[in-house]
């Protein structure tokens, strides 16, 4: 560990004026400024996944302050939004879920077994991040996102919200099927041979074909009983969970003529009732609770969902910690009683957890688990904060995140008590406000960005870090201002000494999955080459998709206040990257145009010099004026030549592909900060 103590003399090193206004430090690690060619490449890679140009590097060499203008320009590119979306999905803990996780919030069968469920889950993962992007793009503060009741949703996702509002499990897991209870005589009919009913007719109450669903799988599914085979049509009593599953192509359980049970079938996917656009038509939707006597939105009414910009639900929703993705990520139960929910919500907002180190003293302790954590017990330290703070969640929601029905819990008061903020909260809106306004919030979000940009934390004692935090707060939490500030800071560029550099050294990290895949897409013109999008995951995953599933990726662990960031190039990283590069090489060298990848770069082995020049500039990100550019060009050219020589000469195509692989494996493509 470096020795850290005040030493103002270091102000003479570098040009960090801000650092010199506060304490400075000496270190066992001598500081060496990183060149503009390297840090311009790093910043552009992080922001948009693209390589720098000669002009951009030259501008920064001439005037380091030019980086700010470049960052402004890059932030206008569509790739910036794509990368920030991934960041927000992780930062707000909306990812790391699959359809299986929904069993814990929609018991007993979750979302069913439909083939298209990955599309819905991806919608759920993206929704809140898209919301944040919409809010920040409108110039509103990031804190507005914490409190928003307006979310970016697709019709499919709106349907999920409305379904969860209908299929309600109480604290004991007992289901209250609100729609079925109100419409006990309604039946669902599945049919194939009858004339196809439009989805709008099938989902419009009062229509003669209401809840008649066409599914061609009726004719082909195998059943254990002969009487079930090809049964067409058949009807079942209304049940919201079965109805929801039908939208995803499932064939519900039913009885044959002899009353044998024909079990549920996931179907082939041909029976999917929703359109592709139901998963792609994003819009801002306001979620509100009904006025007196007002009906709630019906989850099956797809025509309304497609046109509406409002969802009327009994279940209140606000900000990031009440989304289905967050709930599915952090299921609670009769033992946990929302403690995981509040702890993860605190981690997201403030970067801190209830871990027994918080000296906050609550005024009262509503909801305290006296059996387990009464005063004087070892557990009291955490529970005196955890239990009151989660109380408002427990009074609002059952353990399955639908409206609470336990009268005692509903009337239990809430008190926010965390990191020296102690205040009563009556609603989850109050909770959202406390999270948004918490004094730890600004530093926490600067720190999250530090991890994303530099693969390591900023030193909280770094005056440069503190300056960025202050600027973030004084900018009314302008996210884009913060990004610009961070990207141009010596904390990121290492163009000047900072305490963070002294603490961490200069961190060079592998291009983790999201950065790598974005770079491949954006530099080579691919659309989702890694198949990260669920819509591209239908069928057998490609070799690239299989490899990236094991690549180092950004993640978060339960209870952990810091992200999980595998940074080092293990043998698996190296081997995986090599195989990815080989796969990509056949798509970009002498390749037949792929209609699924209309924008993909294609180089020809008949013009190797031009191809190699682009490998250096586009893939390796070395501009012509970079002294390394000429050297690597020579080496790559020699490789192309050597590959076609020798006792078993390679074809020109394979030689150029191999040359591409070398470029693709170069330190500057697979390492951030090279």
């Amino acid at each position, binding site marked *: 560990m470096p020795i850290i103590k005040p030493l103002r003399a270091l102000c003479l090193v570098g040009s960090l004026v801000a650092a010199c206004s506060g304490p400075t430090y000496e270190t066992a690690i001598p500081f060496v400024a*990183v*060149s503009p060619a390297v840090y311009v490449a790093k910043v552009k890679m992080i922001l948009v996944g693209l390589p720098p140009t000669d002009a951009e590097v030259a501008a920064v060499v001439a005037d380091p302050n030019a980086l700010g203008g470049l960052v402004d320009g890059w932030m206008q590119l569509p790739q910036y939004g794509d990368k920030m979306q991934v960041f927000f999905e992780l930062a707000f803990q909306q990812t790391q879920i699959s359809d299986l996780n929904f069993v814990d919030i929609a*018991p007993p069968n979750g979302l069913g077994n439909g083939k298209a469920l990955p599309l819905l889950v991806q919608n759920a993962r993206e929704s809140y991040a898209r919301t944040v992007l919409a809010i920040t793009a409108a110039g509103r503060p990031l804190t507005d996102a914490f409190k928003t009741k307006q979310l970016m949703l697709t019709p499919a996702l709106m349907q999920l919200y409305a379904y969860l509002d209908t299929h309600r499990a109480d604290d004991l897991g007992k289901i209250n099927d609100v729609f079925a209870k109100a419409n006990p005589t309604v039946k669902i009919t599945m049919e194939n041979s009858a004339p196809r009913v439009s989805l709008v007719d099938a989902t419009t109450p009062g229509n003669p074909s209401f809840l008649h669903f066409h599914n061609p799988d009726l004719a082909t599914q195998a059943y254990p009983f002969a009487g079930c085979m090809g049964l067409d049509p058949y009807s079942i009593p209304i049940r919201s969970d079965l109805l929801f599953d039908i939208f995803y192509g499932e064939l519900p359980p039913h009885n044959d003529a002899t009353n044998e049970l024909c079990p549920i079938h996931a179907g082939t996917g041909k029976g999917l009732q929703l359109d592709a656009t139901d998963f792609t038509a994003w819009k801002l939707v306001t979620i509100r609770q009904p006025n007196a006597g007002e009906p709630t939105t019906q989850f099956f009414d797809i025509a309304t969902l497609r046109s509406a910009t409002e969802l009327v639900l009994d279940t209140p929703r606000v900000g990031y910690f009440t989304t289905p993705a967050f709930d599915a990520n952090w299921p609670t139960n009769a*033992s946990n009683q929302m403690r*995981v929910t509040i702890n993860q919500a605190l981690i997201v907002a403030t970067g801190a957890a209830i871990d027994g180190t918080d000296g906050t003293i609550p005024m009262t302790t509503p909801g305290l688990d006296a059996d387990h954590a009464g005063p004087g017990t070892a557990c009291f330290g955490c529970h005196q904060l955890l239990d009151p703070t989660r109380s408002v969640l427990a009074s609002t929601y059952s353990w399955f995140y639908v409206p609470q029905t336990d009268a005692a819990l509903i009337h239990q008061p809430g008190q926010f008590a965390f990191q020296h903020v102690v205040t009563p909260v009556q609603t989850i809106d109050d909770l959202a406000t406390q999270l948004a306004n918490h004094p730890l919030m600004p530093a926490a979000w600067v720190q999250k960005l530090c991890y994303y940009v530099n693969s390591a934390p900023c030193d909280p004692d770094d005056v440069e870090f503190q300056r960025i935090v202050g600027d973030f707060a004084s900018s009314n939490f302008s996210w884009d201002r913060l990004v610009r500030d961070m990207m141009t800071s010596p904390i990121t560029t290492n163009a000047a000494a900072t305490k963070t550099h002294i603490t961490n*050294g*200069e961190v*060079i990290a592998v291009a983790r999955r999201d950065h790598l895949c974005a770079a491949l897409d954006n530099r080579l013109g691919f659309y989702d080459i890694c198949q990260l999008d669920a819509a591209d995951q239908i069928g057998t*995953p490609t*070799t690239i998709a*299989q*490899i990236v599933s*094991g*690549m*180092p*990726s950004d*993640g978060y*662990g*339960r*209870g*952990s206040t810091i992200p*999980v960031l*595998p*940074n*080092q*190039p*293990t*043998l*698996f*990283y*190296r*081997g*995986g990257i*090599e*195989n990815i590069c*080989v796969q990509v090489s*056949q798509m970009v060298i002498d390749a037949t145009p792929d209609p699924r990848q209309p924008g993909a770069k294609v180089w020809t082995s008949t013009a190797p010099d031009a191809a190699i020049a682009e490998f250096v500039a586009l893939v390796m990100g070395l501009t012509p004026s970079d002294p*390394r550019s*000429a*050297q*690597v060009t*020579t*080496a*790559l050219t*020699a*490789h192309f030549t*050597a*590959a076609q020589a020798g006792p*078993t000469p*390679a074809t020109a195509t*394979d*030689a150029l*592909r191999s040359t591409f*692989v*070398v470029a693709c*494996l*170069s*330190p500057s493509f697979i*390492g951030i*900060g090279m």
Partner: protein
Amino acid sequence: MSISRRNVLMSTLFGAGYVGLRALATGIPAGVLLRGSRALASDPAMTCANKQKAQYVIMQTSSNGDPLNANAPGTYATTGPLSTIAHNPDTMLMAPTALALRGKQTMAAAPWAALDQRVLDRMGVWHIMTNTPVHPREPDVLGLLGATTPNEMLPSLLAKQLAPCLGTIQNEPITLGATSPSEGLRFEGRALPIIPPLALKATLTNPAGPLAGITNLQKIRDQTLAQIDAIYRSTATKAQAAYVDELITSQSQVRSINQDLLSALAAIKDNSVASQIAAAVILFQMNVSPVIAIHIPFGGDNHNDTGLVTEAAQTVSGLATIGAMMTTLGSTPAVNGATGKMIDQVSFVSLNVFGRTIGPANTDGRQHNPNHQVSLTIGKHFAGGVIGGVEPVGTDFGALPIDGIAPIDTLGAFGKTVMAAVGIDQDFIDKAVSTGKVVPSALA
């Protein structure tokens, strides 16, 4: 500029000791030459305490805190407090059944008795206390609750010590089965990636078919890559140079993998537990790492499990998986120059974040139990038997002391005993783990 002239220029730019070029010339990675922090496991600076006793380790871990402790040997009695334990009500799948662990009679749910007697005779059933009811403390439990020096996880301690004995390509453990980053491993403070079996297969398998022509150019490509690395290193800062060295090391490790064994990866079709085990065996055959972490479900976080149906089903499947794994190891030839079968070279160890409550009320689900967790040790150097036991603690049950070791220290004792069983030096064990002591009766 000619190649030779360029190389000459590069060598002059290459920094202290010409490390990169020496690596290029000798085939020894620059990381090793630099004695970097992530040198190859074969680094002679790392010593082996007992090569004969060294074992590969498959480590099962779950941050769910599965109810493995709810039906294991040592939790059954017909009288006294243990007779009130809420065992699984499924009288078919989970019926209390007598079995013997190395000649010692005991009782457990039926799936335990279905294990081969040779497995049971090598199976230690540890009743220990992890002292936490909190899922996020999975990494801490793997680090024996802070008792390790330096603060290292047990699988990483094992891997680092076993690597020089086994001559593995790397000294970090590998995680194949973690279901979330919470179950990921750390090594020397670094997060290690989670590599599911399918990803492993796609990562290590050389492209073939139409891409074989590129694979055939691997050797010449490596030479060019070395030149490229040298170019980057010539203008690098110290940190950048270190990164290039890491790349060189990892490249060398990739090339160290026995290509003849890659075809075995073709059998992996999914990320199931069976595939995790198959991948672990192949990785041992390739001698990649001494320790592989997997995840076998044994009922999961079963707060809501009406009639404990899932617990029963996954206990059956989980123990059957262990049985199948032992059968595979028993029929697979030993590796690394040894004779016999791999079953004598591979130890299986399990450690979950906590166990479940097993008091009488737990019939439709179970809660977290900080006082009782069951770990398994199976291997040549482990003795079959129940180690420790349970006693009433509060309204539930907790671990008993083991050979005078207080329950709070049984986790450390477990770690120490595992380390002793695989031949790690006692002095090192005592320095590396500050709590508990080796339990001789658990060793064969």
